């Protein structure tokens, strides 16, 4: 009887372990949009090639996006974004590496919307800064939708806006993230 109990415990331990290992979710086509529009100029861009991984067991979270993957309505603007502002040949990726502060409040296997707080390091244009934002994790049928919206100051990332276009480019850029993640199977 005791031996059976022991065995059950060991087995359940193994089970929990396997579950913990597979509790990672990922995407390669997350959407990131940003807007630096001003009343005189519409400056919007979208990337649909964001990679992201969330480790549900720890709440660790990582995002990476190729700067050249941002598409603009006006291709010249896109060229200038890469060439003059982001220097994307030098700094090809923007990344975020952080932690869901209240990861335990998210029931990863249960459908629902979970507001979370995310904190971590945002690296843009080679400059890393600590950021914190509110985000939402929506779970439906084993799929995870992570969304957030936050503002960054262009100057914080050493991106210079020249005086000739000072009226046209916003100094505060709003970034929205919408990433649908699925379970990462190794």
């Amino acid at each position, binding site marked *: 009887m*005791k031996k059976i*109990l*022991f065995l059950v*415990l*060991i087995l*359940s*331990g*193994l089970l*929990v*372990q396997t*579950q*913990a*290992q597979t509790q*990672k979710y*990922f995407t*390669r086509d997350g959407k990131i949009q940003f807007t630096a529009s001003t009343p005189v100029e519409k400056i919007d861009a*979208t990337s649909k090639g964001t*990679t992201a*991984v*969330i*480790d549900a*067991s*720890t709440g*660790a*979270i*990582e995002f*990476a996006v*190729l700067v*050249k993957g941002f*598409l*603009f*309505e*006006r*291709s*010249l603007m896109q*060229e*200038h974004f*890469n*060439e*003059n502002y982001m*220097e994307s*040949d*030098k700094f*090809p990726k923007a990344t975020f590496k952080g932690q869901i502060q209240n990861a335990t409040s998210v029931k990863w296997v249960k459908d629902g919307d979970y507001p979370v707080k995310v904190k971590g390091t945002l690296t843009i244009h080679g400059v890393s800064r600590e950021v914190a934002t509110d985000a939402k994790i929506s779970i439906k049928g084993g799929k995870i939708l992570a969304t957030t919206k936050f503002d960054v100051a262009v100057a914080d990332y050493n991106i210079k806006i*020249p005086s*000739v*276009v000072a009226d*046209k480019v916003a100094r505060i850029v709003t970034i929205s993230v919408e990433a649908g993640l699925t379970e*990462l199977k*190794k």
Partner: protein
Amino acid sequence: MKTPLFAFLALIAYLFVSNPLGAQDDDLLALLGEEKTTNYITASFKTNRVINGHSLENTHAGVLDFKIGHRFGMLNQGVYDLFGLDNATIRLGLDYGITNRLQIGIGRSTYQKMLDGYAKFRILRQSTGDVNMPVSLTAVAGMYVNTLKWANPDRENYFSSRMSYAWQLILGRKINDWITVQLTPTLIHRNLVATLAEDNDVYALGIGIRQRLSRRVTLNAEYTYVLPDQILSRYQNAVSVGLDIETGGHVFQLHLTNATAMTEPGFITETTGDWMDGGIHFGFNISRVFTIVKPKI
């Protein structure tokens, strides 16, 4: 006694085996493996011309580029003509990107009242990463119609005599963020030439360089070497130097050049200005782009 010990062992085993927090990954993205991406090199030049000649760059898909090319007279015209500022020749042009590789364009010049049309196709795109391509290669084919009144209307004149053609390959590389170099082997064909001493087919080799001075200003230079004994000795090789100044939607190109014409047969085979003699035009090109077809995002 036996039971608690056994239970304790079981608990230890349980914790040891499960330990969900033990296996923290430092680099989660590494789990996905390295993605294969190709980084295409862009912005080798500020616009699709170096100065007179084509650059490596194409007008992007769905974009219309309106060009105003303007050359004042020559500096050696002296103070009476305000060093050439009293005179001007222009070319008005439209360039359109059908795809990111294929561009077409038309233009009309004061010089020989010339109409021109061309197609430009990017064969190779310089890139790094998954596809590693050290150079860009572009082909340009142009045709040109001289619409001046016939110099000698009494003789039998053929429309074909007005035509000339140019074929170019542009091979170049953006060496780094600051310097781009390109070579342009060129064949010009003139259907009619003025004298027997001139060849109908003229071979030339162009070289173009751009050196960036700041994010928005580049220094450009362009030289076209015409292989010997093809054109009259009074014609010079075209040499041009200038600045590209980009202000967002516009590119202003300010330059000094000994070429009067802004089309290939003109500036390659018919340049008369001599740099040593002050035969230099001050000139500018203005490029303004309009997005006609918005890309799907």
